């Protein structure tokens, strides 16, 4: 009976969260792909006649301390931030998922080695490790992707390994083995598709988390480099002006919240759809 109620609720919700999330992300994607058609001004050109202007019709989000239009910078930043969201998570998600599903199925010494690696990497504070790696490679977004990828695949692998372990004990995996399928076929045709839902959901959350990480690195001077507009860097730029020019940091902040909301709505929606599908 409670199953009936749950089913009804699922039936109502997914379209909302999924559509809402997709709508937000589509708007951001548009900004990211063709900023030059959307942004009214150049994101980098100085304008000494309009320094630190509060929001007006000409500059709806105001201008910064170099007279750059915040709206245009926020729009241009979306392409950088969506890039961060995708490039910082793509490799970890794919590689981690593959490694996790293989390890979950194979077990044995590869799994033991993996668990040791996990132990080591999760005991070093994530940010510290990323900073060291970025410092080794040099500041900038490209190297941030590498640093995050080097560490973050662990989380996906862990998630996936757990799911596959749970799935592998189920009947259909045993049935597959009885029918003489090879392990690769069992892993990729049977286990992976069934276990991938939580990974997808986490992926969405992770995208938002990486945007934030980018901004933290920006704060420490290791993230996107000025004059590149990136939401986190825009907020950091505005930090000295919070009491005198609030618009410098508020609007990029709203953009981050929106993107985060978009991703998590999409994640929620995907989760309930996948749950329904199972």
């Amino acid at each position, binding site marked *: 009976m409670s199953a*009936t109620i749950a089913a009804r609720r699922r039936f109502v919700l997914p379209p909302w969260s999924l559509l809402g999330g997709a709508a937000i992300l589509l708007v951001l994607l548009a900004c990211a792909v063709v900023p030059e058609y959307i942004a009214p001004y150049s994101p980098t050109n100085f304008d000494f006649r309009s320094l630190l202007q509060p929001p007006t019709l000409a500059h709806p989000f105001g201008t910064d301390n170099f007279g750059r239009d915040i709206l245009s910078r926020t729009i241009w930043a979306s392409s950088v931030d969506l890039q961060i969201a995708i490039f910082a998570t793509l490799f970890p998600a794919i590689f981690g998922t593959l490694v996790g599903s293989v390890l979950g199925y194979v077990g044995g010494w590869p799994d033991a080695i993996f668990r040791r690696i996990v132990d080591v990497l999760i005991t070093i504070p994530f940010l510290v490790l990323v900073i060291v790696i970025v410092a080794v490679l040099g500041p900038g977004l490209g190297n941030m992707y590498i640093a995050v990828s080097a560490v973050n695949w662990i989380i996906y692998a862990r998630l996936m390994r757990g799911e596959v372990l749970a799935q592998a004990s189920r009947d259909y995996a045993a049935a597959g083995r009885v029918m003489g399928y090879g392990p690769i076929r069992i892993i990729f045709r049977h286990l992976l598709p069934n276990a991938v839902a939580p990974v997808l959901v986490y992926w969405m959350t992770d995208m938002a988390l990486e945007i934030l990480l980018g901004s933290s690195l920006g704060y420490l001077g290791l993230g996107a480099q000025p004059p590149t507009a990136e939401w986190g860097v825009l907020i950091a730029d505005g930090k000295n002006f919070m009491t005198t020019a609030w618009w410098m940091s508020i609007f990029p902040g709203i953009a981050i919240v929106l993107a985060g909301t978009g991703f998590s709505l999409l994640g929620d929606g995907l989760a309930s759809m996948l749950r329904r599908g199972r």
Partner: protein
Amino acid sequence: MTPLLSIRGLSVQIGRGTPVDGIDLDIAPGETLGIVGESGSGKSLSLRAILRLLPPQAKVTGTAIWNGVDLLTLPEPDMRRVRGGQIAMVFQEPMTALNPVLPIGLQITESLGVHLNLRGAAAKTRATELLDLVGIPDASRRLSNYPHEFSGGMRQRAMIAAALASGPKLLLADEPTTALDVTIQDQILKLLLRLKEELAMSVVIVTHDLGVVAGTCDRVAVLYAGKVMETGPVRTLFTRPSHAYTLGLLRSLPDAAHARQRLEGIAGSPPDPGALPPGCRFAPRCGFALDACRIGDRVLAPSAPDQLSACIRAETVMAA
């Protein structure tokens, strides 16, 4: 004789659907009533609606008169005294119905504390007696065990002990044996019957297992798509069903009234509670259906002494 519990027009509405739609039932003192139906017929929902265990999204209407008061409108504190104290309930899956992180003993004594004001050593003694009563050996030691340390049958016994701790007058059993092995099912059913006698209770057993009904119940109500199709004494109803649906159920069994197996023999599937057919809800699947079956409301009408049916073709069915 005044019924112990008298249910009239019980409906449960969830969203746009009405999975329970105007059920009338009476439970007499000392009686064992069986409620049967396919999954989704609303039998579990009805049972939970009586104790108001449904989540807030579920709108419950109708009356359920117990000791002269309507359980469905009773203030929450009074309702709490009824639950467990006067009307107890056991569930299908003991593994999920017992809290996995609390010891068995605590799950029995907490109810003793609330209803009988028994605490500490006294509650413990009583809990040991209860575990003894439901046939768990070495009861006093077992109190500190956790559910995962019990076998399936023992868990069900423990749940029954927890439910009956405060001496209720009515036990609602929601598919109490479905999750168990066949051999254990018998033991649990026997236990329920014994307890019913010893504690002088009435029992309502919800099940989709006709065998269980045949073996334990005095009376039976057949539910389909949220409505009562037919009620009557077990013996007469099983030998001479007066509703096409009941007949279908019985015919679907290789050896009716004896074999225990799921009801799968009727072609088609029950209607979506959100899109019910007009007329008799069974009509789309019914071999006896006439055009008249597809219009109008159905009411229960006597089809034999003590037997009520909602089938306009009751006589034809009884003759079949």
